[in-house]
Structure formats: C-alpha cells, structure tokens
C-alpha cells in the first residue's frame, strides 16, 4: 500500500531531521529593559535598569539589540550632586551613564501603549529601526521591568498602569507573530510575582522579586546622592552576574542564578515560573544564563544551493507525513474508542517549531536566469570579438 510506504518514510527521515531539531536554537539575543517610574526619589529604578543594561552589554548584546526605556533623566536632574552620572552603588565605582549609552525611549515616550506596541511591533512606518524590537522566531528576549507595582499591575509614570493581563496578551501576540524563540521575563517591583501569573504563552520563563502582598525593598542609599540607589532583588541578580558570569563563555545555568536568591538578603520572596517552558522546570533549569543575558555564540551559516533546498523539501515532506500519520492514528484511536494519550509538551513544541521553519521561495528566479543568460551571452560575445581581433592581427 502506498500509504504504508509513506508511513515508513518518517523513520528514514527522522535521522535527517534530528540535527535540525537540535540546532533549533536562537540565533539572536535581544533585551528590553524598562524602568517605569520617573521623579528623583525613584533614582534607584533607573539605576536598576542601567546596571542591567551595562551587564547585558558586557555579555555581548549590542546596543542595536537592546531597547532601553528610561522615563526620567537622573543624570541631568538638578538635584544630582554628581551631574551627568548615575550610580547603582554607594561606592560610586562605575558611572552607569558613562559616555556610551543609547536610550531608545525616554521621558514621556515611556508609556504602556508604546511598550506594548514595541513588543508586538505594531508601530507606524515612521518609527526608526532603533526603536523597534526586530526579533523573529529564533530570537531570545530578556524582558526586565522595574518600577512601582501592586497586585497584577505595574505603574507607568504615575499616570497609567499596565496589568498582568495586558502583558500576558502582548506576549501571546508575540508568540503568534513568531517574534520570539524563548523569553525570560524578570521584574523587580512590589508584588512582582503577580505580574507574570497571567502569562499563557509557551517558551517563557518568568521570575519576580516578591510574592503577592509583599513589598520589594531598596538595597542601600547613597548619602551623598541622597537617595536609594538600587533595589535588593536587582542588586543580588547583578551580584551573581558579575561574580559568576564573568565572560560570554560562562556555562552558568538559570538554575544557578535562581538558586542564588537568598530570601534573607532580598527581604522578599522571589518567584520563578517554569510551567510555560518546554520541559518544565527541568528543561528550564538547564538553560544557560548566557542564553538570555549574552549574545548568541554559535552562528548558523545559511548555505545556498540545492543542498538546503533538498533539506527543506524533505522537511516539508516529513511534516506533511507526520501530520497524515497523526490524523490516521487519531482515526484509528477513535475507531477503537480509545482516547489518544496527550502528546508530551516537548513533542508538541517540536511540532510547532518545525511548522515554523521557513521555506524561502525565490520569486525572481526568471529574472535571475535572464541576467545569467545575458551575462553569458555578453562573455561569449567579448570572447568572440577578442578572437576575431586576434585573427585579424
């Protein structure tokens, strides 16, 4: 039977597909770093974000792939005793503002609307590339937020707030639009863990600084600047990143990072959410810190030519076969009046990823052929003309 033959095919293809599944890693890293509060006494929130900005830059994410949102300018605030600087530590060893900083959204541009538009890429044509999150389904994104929040909301600029539902829907839209591969959501605010409680899109690991009804606290104040300069949760995250993740080749995992949280130091109960991630907690814990905080190391070279075309064809074929087989199995199962066992999340995930693979069809092949023919004809004409001259001489 033809169908039986087809059913046997996937087994053959499996060996071919396997390397593809393994290399289905991310190919780019992006970071969205948001402070949501303005005013001098919220100095620490901007310092939080800026120190994280510095860290991800240190670990290799270029400015072009960092979206930095700062609602206020602490460096130029007249109250700043050290004009033009922002420090996140009372020792004032590192000026976070420095001379190499690229703020993408500043002042009153930092709004809930702009933030959601940024995530979902619903922006006008006039929006410059530097202010867009140009991610695809192979991008890993780190989303870090800090500000004043409450149960299932985060205040933006004293004027509006984003709810946990808005954020969850924005991430779902990103997933539907294939705008991320994996996402690490990190938030430092009061009752932070409520902010990720509504997420329902796959491939997200979320962590926050405090449980519901818990406040997040500042770490220490700089008595010359006159304000608190950093929050506890962010401080200990940075502490880990700076002491353990020293170079981009670091093999520290998220497990190491999350296990380093010490409630007695943070003064609130940090939370982690794994259930949306393929492989759950076990899968997530093995992920490298560098998968989110640093830039991608292994580069996938797009080879041109028949080899890939063939692979892609096979892939498409395999996909179709798998689908048919699944349908046949489902029918069979229905006949036997047995409910199909639920496929494991990981398998499901793999399926979706395969579907997500792009087959690029060259629409301008005729044009290219014409150009080739013309070039060939031109060459032979030159060669003919040359030989004609030679014979004439």
């Amino acid at each position: 039977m033809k169908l039986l033959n087809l059913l046997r095919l996937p087994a053959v293809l499996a060996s071919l597909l396997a390397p593809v599944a393994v290399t289905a890693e991310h190919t780019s890293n992006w970071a969205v770093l948001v402070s949501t509060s303005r005013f001098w006494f919220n100095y620490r929130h901007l310092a939080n974000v800026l120190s994280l900005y510095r860290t991800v830059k240190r670990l290799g994410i270029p400015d072009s792939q960092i979206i930095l949102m700062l609602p206020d300018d602490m460096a130029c605030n007249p109250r700043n005793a050290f004009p033009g600087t922002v420090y996140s530590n009372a020792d004032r060893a590192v000026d976070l503002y420095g001379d190499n900083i690229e703020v993408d959204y500043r002042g009153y541009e930092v709004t809930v609307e702009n933030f959601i538009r940024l995530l979902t890429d619903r922006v006008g044509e006039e929006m410059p590339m530097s202010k867009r999150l140009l991610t695809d389904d192979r991008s890993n994104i780190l989303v870090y937020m800090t500000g004043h929040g409450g149960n299932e909301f985060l205040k933006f600029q004293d004027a509006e707030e984003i709810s946990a539902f808005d954020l969850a829907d924005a991430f779902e839209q990103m997933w539907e639009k294939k705008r991320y591969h994996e996402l690490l959501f990190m938030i430092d605010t009061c009752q932070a863990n409520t902010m990720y409680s509504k997420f329902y899109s796959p491939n997200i690991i979320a962590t926050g600084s405090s449980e519901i009804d818990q406040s997040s606290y500042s770490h220490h104040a700089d008595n010359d600047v006159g304000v608190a300069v950093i929050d506890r949760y962010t401080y200990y995250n940075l502490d880990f990143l700076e002491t353990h993740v020293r170079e981009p080749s670091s093999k520290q995992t998220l497990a190491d990072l999350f296990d380093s949280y010490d409630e007695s130091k943070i003064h609130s109960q940090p939370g982690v959410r794994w259930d949306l991630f393929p492989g759950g907690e076990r899968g997530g814990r093995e992920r490298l810190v560098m998968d989110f905080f640093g830039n991608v190391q292994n580069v996938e070279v797009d080879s041109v030519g028949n080899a890939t075309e063939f692979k892609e064809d096979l892939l498409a074929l395999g996909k179709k076969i798998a689908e048919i087989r699944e349908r046949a199995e489902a029918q069979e199962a229905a006949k036997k009046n047995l409910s199909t066992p639920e496929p494991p999340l990981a398998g499901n995930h793999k399926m979706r990823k395969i579907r997500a693979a792009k087959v690029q069809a060259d629409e301008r092949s005729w044009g290219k052929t014409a150009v080739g023919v013309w070039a060939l004809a031109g060459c032979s004409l030159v060669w003919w003309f040359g030989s004609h001259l030679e014979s004439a001489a």
Partner: protein
Amino acid sequence: MSGLLSSGSLLRRNPRLLQVPPYLSFLCIAIGVAWLLLLPLDNYSRRTYISENALLPGQVHTYFAGSDQNVFRGYKREVDELVEKSNAEVNDKLEEFFKASGLKVARQKYEYRSAGETYSGENVYAILHAPRGDAEEAIVLLGAWTNVEGELNKSGVALVLTLARYFKRWSLWSKDIIFLITADSRAGPQAWVDAYHDTHQKGIQSLPVKSGALQGAVVIDYPFDHRFESIHIVYDGINGQLPNLDLLNTVVAIASGQMGIGASLQKMWQHKDSYKDRLTTMLRGMMNQGLGHASGPHSSFIPYHVDAITLQPFGEGWEDEMAMGRVIESTFRSLNNLLEHLHQSFFFYLLMQSNRFVSIGTYLPSAMLVAINFTIMAIFLWVKSGAPSTTNSKVASTDKKSGPLSIIQEGDAKALIPKQILEETEREFFLPLAVVVGSHFLGVLPLYLFNHTPEIMLPSVFFIFAIVNNIFPFLISTALIRSFNPSHQQYQLIKAFSLLFLGMFLSSLATLNFSLAFLVGLLAAPLTYVQSFPNRPITTTLFVILLSLLTPTTVLLASSFYWNLGVGEVLKEAAFGWDVWGMNTQVVVWCVWWPAWVVGMIQLAGKPRNEKPKPEKAAVKS
C-alpha cells in the same frame, strides 16, 4: 399605629419627645468635652509619619562643619558689632555680606500703622538662583533681626549669613533659595510676604527682585550664644491655619533621627509622654490656634499656603550652632527634593507631642457636638413657639375627649386627634428678628472701637465698655418691655434665632478653626439654658452672675490676668493682628459671640407679657 407615629404633627406635639431636647443638647456638650479629653490616649491619636515620598528626610550627609564654623564665628562678631546700629546701617552691612557671597540682594521698606502707633523697618533679602534649576520655585530661609520677644537674634542672623555662603557652594539646588532678614518678627515678615504676592497695602514697598513660587519657609530664632539642648518648633499660623504636617515631620525626623537632637512643641520644655503632658501640649496648641495670632515670623507665610515653621534652639546642652546649621541644611535638602507643593499630609491636626497627632476626622466631632447643641435647642424652641400658649401637655396626653377632634389621614391610616395638637399659632417674627439682627450689627461697634482706638486710650475704653456691657442688656430689655411688651412666644423666637445663628456659624467655623469654634462654643454653652424666669429671682441672679462671668470682656480680662499681661497690651496686639496680619478672631468674638451673649442677657432680664389664658408657666417649664 406606625402611620400615626410617623405623622410629623403628632411627633411635634409628643410631650415626651418635647422633653428630650434640653437633655440632648446638654449631652452633646458633655460628649463634646469628653471627646476632646480622650484624644491624647493611644487609641485615639496616631504616631506621625512622612507621607510625601519625595522628601527623604535625613538621607543625606551634611557637610556644614569644619571651616564653616570659623566663617560663622566671623559673621557672629560682625553681627555683635551691629547691635546698637540703626536698621539702615545694619542692612548696609548685611547687603555687603550677601553680595560678598555672590548673591543678588534687594531691600524693602515697610510702614504699618495700628492702634495709633507706627511700625516701620526695612527688610533685606538675597536670592540664590538654583545653578541648574529653572527658577520656578523657591524656598525661604528667614532670620529676623529681633525675635518675637524683641531679643536680638544674633546667632540666628549669623547662621543665615553662613548658610547663604555655604549653600552657594552647592550646585544641586532645584529651587531658588531666598535668604531673608527682616527688621522684626511681626510686621517685617508680613510686609515681605504680602509684597512677594503683590497684595501689599500702601506704605509697603514692592519687591524689586523676586523668584518663583514659594514652596516652604524655615525661620531660625537663635538669640543666644551658648550651646543648646534641643529644638523648639513653632508651627501655628495666623487665624489658626497650620503648615502641612509633612514639613514638621521632616524637621522632627531630621533633628531626632539624623542629628540626635530632641524636638518639642508649644513650650513644653519637658515632655514625659504622659497623658497630662500630651493634653497640655494639645490644649496649648488649641489656645494658640484659637487666638489666631502670629506665633513667629513663619506665621505670616501660612495664609499664602506657604508651609513654614520657626526653629528655636533652647536649653543648656552640648549641641552647637553648627548642629543647628546641619538641621537646616538637611531640611533644605529635603525641601529641595520636593517635586510639587507639600500636599500629601494633613493641614488640619492637633499635635500632642512632636511625633503624635490627631487628624481632623478624629477631633472634629468634638467641636461639632458643642455647636450642634445650639442648633438642637433652636429647633426645639421653634417647634415650641408654634404651640398655642394655652396648651397644657397633660390635657393632650391623657384627657383625650376634652377637646374637639379632627381627622388626620396618612395613606390608608386615619386617626382622630384633639384639635389642640394640630393647632399652630401664628409666629410674630418681626420683633425677634429685629432684636437678633440688630444685636449682631451692634457687634460692629466694639469691633471698630477696639481696632481703631489709640494704644494709650485702649485700657480706659475697655473698662468703660466692660461696665456699659454689663448694664446695656438690661437697658435694652427694659426698653423692649416698655415699647413692645413682647409675648412669651416672641422671647422664645428671639432665643431660637440667636441660637440657630450661633450653631450654624460655629459648626462651619469648626472646619476652619477648630479651636476657636470649640472655645467660643464652650463659653457660650450656658446660653442654651438661659430664659426669663419671672418668678424665680434666685435662679435669675445665678444666671446673671454666670453670664457676666462669661461675657467676652470678663473672659478677656481674666485671661490677660492669667497670662500676666495688661489688658491694654492684649488689645493692642489684637488691633495689630487686625491691621497687619489680617487676623479675624475679633470678628468671631464681637460679631458672633458677643451678640449671642447680649441676646441671652435680654432673655434673662425679660418679662413675657401676661396672656389671659394663664397656664403659661407650665408650658415654660416643660
């Protein structure tokens, strides 16, 4: 039955119900006073806290020390040399100092006239423009040349000069800082603030240089050389207005939290945190608020919604002038952090310790209850005045068949009711209204008299007025009886209108100046029970004595005796308050309290006309 009971006309004539109001209004007064006495307890007062996030009190290191102490000593010596100099010479020197610190300097001459005296002087001030700020807002550091007691504020002025020089070195100001040295503590600050807001009277110069909207003012009153123990904070404004509680909390937090210097209020040099000490502090605060006078140079700022306080070091301790300077420095750093006007915390509060207060929601019912007692009585009298004078309550309640009956219908319910109950006699309005309105207008007379008499004549005018005051109601009463022969109903109406007005006025005043409303309410409380007792001379005499003790003039005399002040002095201060500060306590005293008292006396001296159907006395008694 319920239909019957709910019938208003029946309720109005219910003899049992008609007995309630006098007791009810007495209960109101008693509860009102008891309420106030409960406030100092832990369960009713709260600990203070900082509401404004931006203030961040005590979070900065202060650097006012070291060589600045030498600068201070230098300025101190210069100030000591100016002691005997004239105002203009002093200001020449001060101007020189400010200019040497690199500040823009200006001067302002002022002249006030009150109670036949002239108060003139010249203020000098310097503006430090915020190096990176936008000049939209400013804070004021004030040191008066002489303090409220008339002492030379030598360390205070030297400290202002030193701090001006010191602040100029910082580049972190977001608001301009105005250093103001006024010629005195009473007229000078008022002239300056008025001129700053362009509301000054003639005789006061406009300010040649100004800055942005004032966000706060801190006054240093430091008239001695030696070291001090702790800081006394004066916060009462004119007419009982108060600065935002956050400002006071900030200074207390900085002084006690950061610098380890105690803070005390209302001249409570020792505060053991006992019930008695708390109550005393609160009552002293209420007295200052009720009088509505300026308790320091800061008071003039408060009516302009500029939160201000005066800091007075006191006692013998080991804190030196630099510690005082650091408290000011830290306070200014906090004020500098402000993003908008102080608005988060309370504007209406009673303090019973530097870190314990009650807010308006907790204390207001006390004054309201006292005020409501008048209103209850007024309504009661109105209802009673409508009853026919022949009505004997016993007839109405027991002997149902004695009179003609009428049918009352309410919904489906019908009832037979003695006609007497439903009868309503016509109320004769004109005379009662004329008496009450007339006496209130008469209040303008003492108001004008005491605010415009020259100082020398004030005591004699006062004593003449006090004597006339005690005879005058009897004269009026006799004249009334002679020419109009008012009926019992008319007397009731006179009292009803008078109490109604008093009750309404005091309950609205309670929200603005709680203490004044409470004090006047308490002093006027006996008026609720005053009426003519034609055949009871002893009761009448007792009431006359009581009322004579509680007349505004006697109270004024007694309190000036209690505080060891001459009557002339008190009246001069009151006239000064009226002319310079825009104080309006006098209006309350002479145009509200005094007329009510006069009407009360007229009642006592009154003799209701005898009407033919006799049992009038019974009605009066009920």
